[in-house]
């Protein structure tokens, strides 16, 4: 990245908190999250929208933060992996990934968690096929897909059961 010539002031809501930052016009959201806001849970893999490691929600829409200009999120709401656990209590998707050993090196895991949580909020009862298609943009370089899918389906089931109580 070149040194920015002119900085823009952006105000957005990040994980529920009003946040202001400076960015250059061509700086992508993934870089701002990591370099300006120290939210380094969002990983950068390919930087071209292929791998899903930088998955975040912008206005509840699942996107790759490497393909969003930071300046675009003025006035918008961003959710990152740091906003998933509530006060130290893991989200069911996180808990089930631990139980199923659904991670190896871990670099895809934050993106998988954000994407899987979005899946279950969009479709509380996904089939295995629907889960695999929804997560097709989250590449796991350790190829541990099967355990990831089992964990996500298990988390969805647990969340349905909790909702039914």
């Amino acid at each position: 990245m070149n040194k920015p010539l002119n900085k823009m002031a952006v105000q957005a809501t990040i994980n529920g908190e009003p946040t202001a930052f400076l960015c250059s016009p061509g700086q992508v959201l993934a870089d701002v999250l990591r370099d300006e806001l120290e939210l380094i849970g969002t990983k950068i893999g390919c930087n071209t929208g292929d791998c899903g490691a930088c998955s975040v929600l912008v206005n509840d829409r699942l996107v790759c933060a490497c393909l969003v200009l930071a300046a675009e999120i003025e006035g918008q709401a961003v959710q990152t992996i740091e906003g998933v656990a509530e006060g130290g209590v893991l989200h069911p998707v996180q808990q089930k990934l631990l139980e199923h050993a659904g991670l190896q090196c871990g670099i895809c895991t934050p993106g998988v968690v954000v994407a899987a949580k979005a899946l279950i909020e969009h479709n509380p009862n996904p089939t295995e096929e629907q889960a695999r298609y929804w997560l097709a943009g989250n590449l796991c370089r350790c190829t541990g897909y099967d355990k990831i899918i089992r964990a996500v389906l298990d988390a969805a089931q647990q969340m349905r059961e909790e909702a039914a109580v």
Partner: protein
Amino acid sequence: MSIQEFVAPHSLSEAKGFLSDGAAASVLAGGTDLLVGVRLGTRNPERVVDLKKIPELTAISIDAEAVHIGAAASAFSILHDSDVPSFFPGFAEALDLIGSTQIQGRCSAGGNLCNASPAADSIPALIANGAQCLITGPTGDHQMPVEDFVVGPSKNALKEGELLVALILPRPSPQTADAYLRLTPRTEMDIAVAGVGVSLTLDENATCTAARVSIGAVAPTALLVEAAGAALVGTQLDAAAIEAAVAAARQSACPISDKRGTSEYRTHVVGVLVARAIAQAQARIVEAVS
């Protein structure tokens, strides 16, 4: 990145100003092609004009005559927040084949069209449905059929300072349905070896009264194969009619050979997909009216 300036106009007139003052400007809808191009050094805009704050660019509306889809509306919003899929299931399936969930959260039908890839999935589906491009520019607004909009690989018909505002699809009658099929080496996140969009209209006797067949990834641009549609009109979509449409599509195809398939393979496959897409569109009409 080369980007020196980011602007997010709230109106078409403001946007046109940013596109016509001589700066090297690129419009930004979902950015799934633009920002990758900037990263790879193939696109070098000094100014990026974000279109998503302009109401006309993201609105989706349906009236008695047509379905209007703002050029920057995301695939996800078209698929999940609008009634477009119930009118055009084939077009919806084409959008749902583009990239991942994350990409669909950003990418737009207008962007897929302007990017003008020979293998773009949504373009044959738009052509089959007779979609028009609403274009605005320094000299006013005009419309153009989608099949005329793409003029070559990565080349569209927009002139300096012009902007694609919306796609306008004629509202289909209950006797009309579309289909889009493609073949890819893997099941997801891949680029078409061949793609086929079909729209059919049948009368109460199941005779075809209108048909449009469009093929993608088998020529420098997606093509409207008028002879394939003509072969179907007036028939009951019997085997001979479908075979004639298949032959017309194969005759129009002039594909390249690459790692996804040879020219011969693509030509064969596009015919297979034409026959299957016709059958699928026909089945949709039969189901809708039964």
